[in-house]
């Protein structure tokens, strides 16, 4: 029973969500579009709107709030405790899952305190500056292969050649991951402004620690991922996923193991979680949001968990094959013999498996967060500039040489 809490809940959630997505994009919207009054249903802006709403309201926000419970429960399991098990809905405690609702209610009901000499405008806008970049970057994450509209029950051999398609991705940008780096680096404004606008010298110091850490590790993050760009020859996430294919041997983790480790380390530092949590230090250090209370603090908290989900999504996309299921091609399984499957079922499996990978990496980040102790600031800077940065440069040179050698053959 205990094992259920980790896998069953997200499995059901993702299966239901992907079934809804497949139904909507495969049957629902095309059916509306066949009528003269509903041609707007298949327009790019409307499908993008639907995808945004489903991705953010259906996946990111529920899982981010679920992660608050998962972190408490998982840390309890790792530390030989029991963890939250009291909150109940109609007497059903469900392994303590209602605790995240109780947390949210508590956050909303708390006093919304603003320090007397704080800069009220910047103080209010800082949580938004922390949370909006994370939400925006989800636009480039592909959560399924292209859906061939109206061919849901047929076997489709190539999604690129089946006429009208709806991509399972909000925005298909050619700059792709550069867009992610551009937007994600805005998040540092949220933390720094929160520290400065609170009119508290300790929160200001926390904000300075946050900005120095985030800027240092952004360099490594960008350089570590360049190797993957060299291997796949594109910046566009869905093209990267297609290039990896359903065979795990061709996934990014095999061709870029060093890049994956470096990127993961640097990105965990970007999320400001425990091995690198000296900007906030929720347990004892005073951090940049020390003056925040109630839902303003809750937004920072939620932004942190959304960064966890986003890091899981980007790791999945670049290094672990995105929505690819091992052995599942567009027309069905070709792993032990050939089993043709309807296009709708393939889409469903791919999106559900994408969700599983996301949950796995969220779980893995929580494992790391509750295993490792915190770095000292000098250790943090030494790791960032003297160890990760040279290693990522070495990775680029090595990858470039190998790619050049393979192409010249």
């Amino acid at each position, binding site marked *: *029973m*205990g*094992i259920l*809490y*980790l896998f069953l809940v997200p499995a059901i959630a993702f299966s239901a969500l992907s079934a809804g997505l497949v139904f909507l994009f495969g049957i629902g919207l095309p059916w509306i579009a066949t009528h003269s009054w509903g041609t707007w249903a298949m327009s790019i802006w409307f499908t993008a709107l639907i995808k945004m709403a489903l991705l953010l309201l259906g996946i990111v926000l529920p899982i981010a709030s679920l992660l608050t419970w998962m972190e408490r429960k*998982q840390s*309890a*399991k*790792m*530390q*030989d*405790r*029991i963890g939250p098990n009291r909150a109940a809905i109609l007497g059903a405690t469900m392994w303590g899952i209602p605790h995240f609702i109780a947390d949210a209610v508590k956050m909303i009901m708390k006093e919304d305190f603003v320090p007397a000499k704080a800069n009220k405008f910047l103080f209010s806008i800082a949580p938004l500056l922390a949370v909006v970049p994370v939400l925006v970057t989800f636009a480039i994450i592909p959560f399924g292969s292209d859906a061939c509209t109206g061919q849901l029950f047929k076997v489709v051999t190539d999604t690129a050649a089946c006429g009208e398609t709806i991509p399972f991705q909000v925005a298909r940008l050619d700059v792709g991951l550069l867009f992610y780096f551009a937007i994600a680096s805005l998040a540092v404004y949220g933390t720094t402004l929160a520290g400065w606008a609170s009119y508290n010298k300790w929160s200001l110091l926390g904000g300075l620690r946050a900005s120095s850490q985030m800027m240092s590790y952004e360099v490594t993050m960008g350089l570590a991922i360049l190797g993957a760009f060299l291997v796949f020859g594109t910046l566009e996430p869905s093209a990267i996923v297609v290039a990896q294919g359903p065979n795990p041997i061709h996934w990014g983790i095999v061709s870029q193991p060093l890049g994956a*480790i470096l990127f993961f380390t640097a990105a965990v530092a970007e999320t400001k979680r425990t091995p690198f949590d000296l900007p906030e230090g929720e347990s004892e250090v005073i951090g940049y949001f020390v003056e925040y209370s109630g839902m303003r603090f809750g937004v920072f908290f939620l932004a942190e968990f959304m960064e966890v989900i986003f890091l899981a999504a980007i790791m999945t996309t670049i290094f672990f094959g995105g929505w690819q299921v091992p052995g599942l091609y567009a027309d069905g399984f070709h792993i032990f013999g050939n089993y043709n499957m309807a296009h709708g079922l393939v889409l469903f499996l791919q999106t559900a498996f994408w969700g599983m990978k996301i949950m796995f990496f969220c779980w893995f980040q929580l*494992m*790391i967060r*509750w*295993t*490792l102790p915190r770095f000292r600031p000098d250790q943090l800077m030494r*790791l960032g500039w003297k*160890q990760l940065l040279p290693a990522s440069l070495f990775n680029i040179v090595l990858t470039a040489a190998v790619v050049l050698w393979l192409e010249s053959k």
Partner: protein
Amino acid sequence: MEPVFKKRVSKATILKLQRKNSFEQSMMLPAVVKGLGVTLRHFFNNVAGGERSEAVTVQYPEEKFPYPPRYRGLHRLMHREDGAVRCVACMCCPTACPAHCITIIPEETGNGNEKRPAVFEIDELRCIVCGLCVEACPCDAIRMDTGAHAHPSENRANAILNKIDLLKNATLNDKDPHSTAIQGGVPAWRDTNKTP
């Protein structure tokens, strides 16, 4: 380990030692994997539950940790066999009490020279639970073996337990509420049929 930095401050010499990390330590990754191994083992053992669970948490309101038999808890005043308070107001316990939390006002029972407490109050907020009153009592009238904690109260007056409260506390322990101690037998002057 070479001292790389030597500084003389008044009488003490401060040595700062430069510890060299081994290659494995400076790589960090092997240590991280080792640490993850420990936490993963605990995680999966606890998630599997049952025999493999290593959690030792006591779910407090439902399960309670058994106190050791000589645990000193809330006071209780013992009854005689006829229900009268066993205390003879000898004033030993307020004398022994280091926190001065016991107040006794004695009165005569009207039965020879026997006394009994008219008022017997213990301020549980001042009590330091040392048990000296129990040691001091010559007739086993006060005990601290209820196994209960002092109750939470909303004002200070409620934390002062009077004679009736303390006599009621005798039933907190599932042992015989009557005192079982025999100290020289029943004195000839005591009329056991009389209630206080």
